[in-house]
């Protein structure tokens, strides 16, 4: 048996331009899931996000997670953010 969670995905900066949205609810995200699989899931929804490939990280519950093998556990209502290269300051 596998579980799913309903998460809120936030898009910032260039990722918001590429997807045309600032946020969306994803009702059926498998969990646990590797951050790499989570990114690929977002890529399938928004193929234009591939412009960020290799230069993006995610933030899960406001903690940075590199796109890779790290496994994250998601719960309903969790925030997942797409984080393009930072440019504050």
């Amino acid at each position, binding site marked *: 048996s596998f579980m799913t969670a309903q998460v809120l995905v*936030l898009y*910032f*900066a*260039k990722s918001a331009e590429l997807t045309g949205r600032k946020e969306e609810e994803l009702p059926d995200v498998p969990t646990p899931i590797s951050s790499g699989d989570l990114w690929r899931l977002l890529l399938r929804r928004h193929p234009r996000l591939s412009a960020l490939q290799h*230069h*993006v*990280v995610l*933030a899960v519950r*406001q903690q*940075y997670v*590199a796109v890779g093998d790290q496994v994250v556990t998601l719960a309903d209502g969790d925030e997942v*953010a797409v*984080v*393009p*290269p*930072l*440019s*504050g*300051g």
Partner: protein
Amino acid sequence: MSEEPRDVFKLSCDWLSVQEVVDAVNSSSCGAVSVFIGTTREDQVEGRKVIGLEYEAYELMAKSEFSRLCDDIRARWPIVKHICVHHRLGWVKVGEASVVMAISSPHRDDGQQAIQHGISQLKATMPIWKKEVYDSQDADWKENAECSWSTHGEK
């Protein structure tokens, strides 16, 4: 003398007051306040003139990253007293401050080192983004060299 260290963070769509940031770190036990102000340079990029910057932030996460940044600074320079950052959001015209950081410390060397480290870390870790807007109406998302996943970053 024994006042608690303060970490003050504000995201603001208004003009940043340097005095307000300096006042926020004022401490009678500190002889030194180190300040850094980042502004938009007037710049030509491929023949287009920069007219301003458009900032956005992941606001809640920026607040928690600021706490983390302060913890990191205090771990390295335990003598640091207060830390304050005000960062602009939204439209910032060329020449206006986009970030002001101030650190108070009993002596200046700690504060000066702490602020250099603090600004580098802010650029490396704060979930804030800016788009450079040109007189040609187009715009480019910028990337900090300090950000480890930027296209020109240090991996």
